[in-house]
């Protein structure tokens, strides 16, 4: 300006610069420029308090670099507030640009979600394949409708008191699954038959396995993984109800009725917190849960936490399956900022961002890529150090993720899942006194009606 540039020239030059920057808003970092786009995001309100902070931080960082004003809301899943928000925005065709979708929601709202094959393709190119369960839940009519999220996605493997299992059931789970990339002695015997014996012995010693059998997700998830490991299909991939003639369902049901005898007699009314309390209070020897239970124990009952260990689920005739409950990040088709939204989601899914999310959540968040199962946090977290080393699936676990009622078409499976048909099937026989045939007939009729209309 001092060198002869007039005020008018300066304004003209500034306007030109803004026009150029506007055209390349997502690629050209312009730290000092004003944001031109506002992106509204509704992320899941994380159980781990710091989990929200890292999302806010990552969004702000990306927004600064890309001149986008990213507004972040955190929507709780308590009282199913997030489901109500999704349903309301879908009806109104208005709301956030990006939302966190719980497990079954991407398929429920597939027609209203912007396909994200371009981002997923690039991510797969960089990090390898996404696990098949996430693909089953997010892919509709050949297109990815949402991106499997890091924040909020969880596994529910075995989380047990290693001292109690060793003392009463003779199982040294730390030796079987050490905090290293190798399997120890006895892993080949870690199956549902061994599990039943251990459950019986621990129950006899007064430390029942804390396995919920109600209608909440913890119950449906572990029972779903159990049936999957018996190759049991309630409904096949074509939507045909197979529950009554499937030998895996019958065999699994007989087993679970036997197992129920060694569980606390109130498991039929347990919610998702009951199993946590059972372990933390020292009453239970084993539950199936993410490390959040251990994290609470570390705060409230350190003596219990120090004796906890996470390791894979028992194997069944069809293999080893771990309950998996992923979240997804989706972009509404009525969003006005799809390009910016895609840019943000790609950034949140890259390895560095995923590592930061998982680390901040003390290892709770599970990325969808197998190649991301080696973050430092899982090795270092403790006490005992390595307690969550085996929380993500590692190649030597020889396990796969599972979601109950897959591979049924998602619009039928979601109804069976949320109405807990698998645990009610067990409850009808074990608690209600029905015969296996009566219970299977009931399940068949319910499932058929889910497919109608």
């Amino acid at each position, binding site marked *: 300006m001092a060198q002869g540039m007039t005020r008018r020239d300066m304004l003209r030059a500034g306007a030109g610069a803004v026009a150029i920057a506007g055209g390349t808003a997502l690629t050209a970092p312009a730290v000092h420029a004003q944001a031109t786009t506002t992106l509204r995001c509704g992320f899941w309100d994380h159980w781990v308090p710091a989990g929200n902070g890292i999302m806010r931080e990552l969004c702000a960082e990306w927004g600064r670099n890309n001149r986008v004003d990213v507004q972040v809301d955190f929507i709780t899943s308590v009282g*199913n507030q997030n489901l109500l928000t999704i349903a309301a925005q879908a009806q109104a065709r208005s709301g956030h640009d990006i939302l966190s979708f719980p497990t079954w929601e991407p398929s429920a709202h597939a027609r209203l979600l912007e396909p994200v094959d371009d981002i997923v393709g690039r991510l797969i190119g960089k990090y390898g394949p996404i696990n098949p369960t996430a693909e089953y839940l997010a892919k509709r009519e050949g297109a990815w409708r949402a991106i499997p999220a890091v924040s909020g996605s969880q596994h529910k493997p075995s989380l047990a008191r290693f001292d109690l299992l060793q003392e009463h059931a003779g199982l040294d789970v730390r030796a079987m699954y050490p905090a290293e990339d190798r399997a120890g002695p006895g892993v080949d015997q870690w199956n549902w038959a061994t599990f039943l014996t251990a459950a019986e012995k621990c129950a006899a010693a007064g430390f029942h396995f804390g396995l919920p059998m109600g209608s909440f997700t913890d119950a449906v998830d572990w029972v779903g993984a159990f049936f999957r490991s018996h190759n049991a299909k309630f409904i096949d991939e074509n939507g045909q109800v197979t529950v009554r003639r499937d030998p895996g369902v019958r065999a699994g049901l007989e087993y679970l009725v036997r197992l129920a005898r060694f569980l*606390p007699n109130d498991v039929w*009314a347990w919610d998702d917190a009951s199993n946590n309390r059972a372990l933390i209070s020292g009453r239970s020897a084993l539950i199936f849960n993410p490390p959040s239970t251990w994290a609470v124990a570390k705060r409230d009952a350190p003596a219990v936490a120090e004796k906890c260990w996470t390791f894979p689920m028992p194997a069944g005739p069809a293999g080893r399956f771990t309950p998996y409950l992923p979240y997804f990040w989706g972009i509404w088709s009525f969003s006005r900022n799809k390009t910016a939204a895609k840019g943000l989601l790609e950034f949140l899914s890259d390895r560095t961002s995923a590592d930061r999310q998982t680390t901040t959540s003390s290892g709770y968040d599970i990325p969808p890529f197998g190649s991301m199962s080696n973050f430092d946090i899982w090795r270092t977290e403790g006490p005992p150090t390595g307690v969550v080393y085996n929380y993500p699936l590692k190649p030597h676990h020889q396990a796969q993720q599972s979601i109950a009622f897959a591979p049924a078409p998602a*619009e039928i499976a*979601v109804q069976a899942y949320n*109405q807990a048909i698998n645990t009610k099937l067990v409850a009808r026989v074990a608690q209600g006194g029905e015969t296996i045939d009566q219970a299977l007939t*009931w399940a068949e009729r319910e499932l058929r*009606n889910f497919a109608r*209309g």
Partner: protein
Amino acid sequence: MSASGATMTAGRTEGVTSLQRFTRRRSTIAFLMTLPLIAVIGGLVVYPAGYAMYLSTLNRRMTEFIGLEQFAILLDTDTFWMVIAQSCIFAVSAVLLKALIGFWLAHMLHDIPAKGQRKWRGMLLVPWVIPPALSTLGWWWMFDPSYSSINYLLNVFAVPSVPWLGEPWWARTSVIIVNVWYGAPFFMIMYLAALKSVPEQLYEAAAIDGATGFQRLRYVTLPMMRNIISITVLFSLIVTFANYDIVRVLTNGGPRDLTHVFATYAFQVGILSGNVPRGAAVSLFMFPLLAIFAFFVLRGVTRRNKEES
């Protein structure tokens, strides 16, 4: 009549437009003044109800009109028949208990001298004032499957633990207990107001005739309270049938769906399971049942009013 006719004639002759005549009519003004209320009712009652009816005629994906198919599917579902039965058991028994307890409490309060009555009235109203979702959470802690404080007290007296929420009949009893605890004060306050409006002379006349306490209740109190009892029972039945929070917080419909009522089942089917049309059909199912009941109750009230006037 003749005056308004003259005005209208004069209006026509003096060049008043038909619009001006229309706006000057009493019915028009009345309509305009009630318009805000009509708009509120239309927006908050008629539209949602109409939309729910429309939704219930769609298929699961909400892309196709399928008439009453969702209702037919529901009637073919064992769980839904269970929900109908449970909703009736829950609503009828809870309303009956609330009415009896409310009636008894109202009499107790009525007999307390005016000076101390206000204090008791306030205390007895507390359950009704606390938001039910919050108070139910308190009850849930008392009924908790593993750490029930009630069971703790029972154990102190060597009474075995009760599976409050784990055993179907106990779970049903638990939700009814909480609903009665919450709703009885409403009956109490309504009946107390009705009791206070019964003329004292009627009791004096009954006493002169040598009526016993029961006869005074049977021939004086109950006939004088008949309308308020009917209206209160009707109102409570509607609210109890539509109850959501108590069952949702306490049992989530379990065990084995044996405590689900219409509202909780509708939420599970419609929102959680992603089948909004069928959820709408579930929630609409109680509408005809309640409409028939309301018709008979209100007809009885109107008849009695006519007889009395």
